[in-house]
């Protein structure tokens, strides 16, 4: 079946550094991707999304890059702050799959002071 996976289960960065969280997907029919942040005890919070007709999208301190050639998605967080510590998930939606999302297993981001 289709899968969405993450390269690293845990990522540790120093405060102020940039963070890069990676995600591989296998469904070439996916047309929409989302990154979520989940803090302990809370539901996933939408961060940023990107459609398959784009290769880059920027938000406030975050950038999502999409490489369809190698089916790779990344989330870049600039000037990482302690409040960025959380689990980050990527999710994909397939064309013809309705509005159902398939999630990766998540990456724990730890920000060290």
């Amino acid at each position, binding site marked *: 079946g289709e899968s969405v996976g993450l390269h690293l289960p845990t990522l540790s960065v120093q405060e102020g550094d940039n963070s890069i969280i990676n995600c591989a997907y296998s469904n070439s029919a996916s047309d*929409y991707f*989302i990154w*979520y942040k989940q803090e302990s*005890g*809370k*539901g*996933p*919070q*939408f961060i940023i*999304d990107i*459609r398959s007709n784009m290769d880059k999208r920027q938000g406030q301190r975050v950038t999502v890059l999409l490489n369809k050639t190698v089916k790779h998605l990344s989330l870049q967080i600039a000037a990482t702050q302690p409040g960025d510590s959380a689990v980050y*998930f990527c*999710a994909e*939606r397939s064309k013809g799959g*309705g*509005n*159902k*999302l*398939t*999630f*990766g*297993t*998540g990456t724990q981001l730890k920000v060290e002071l």
Partner: protein
Amino acid sequence: DVKVTQSSRYLVKRTGEKVFLECVQDMDHENMFWYRQDPGLGLRLIYFSYDVKMKEKGDIPEGYSVSREKKERFSLILESASTNQTSMYLCGWGRDRDGYTFGSGTRLTVV
């Protein structure tokens, strides 16, 4: 912003009990869904609803059913709870132009 409310943050139920998890959204959106979240497995789709009285099975519907009698409310039902249904349950609504919004989750423990 649309707010999604899940009726309980923590629940403890006994094996064999019938369990209802409620989810309410405060806008008139058609799409609602239920996921469960387990360590190492991420979020897995249980059921999806496109509109009132409409439902579609997700990836792991076994042992679950759903009810959507009103547009704002989507209920997940465990007909006979089992210990392997101990999990975090997340409800939400979604459409791609607005992203997908989740509630805070219900942590269910079946003993």
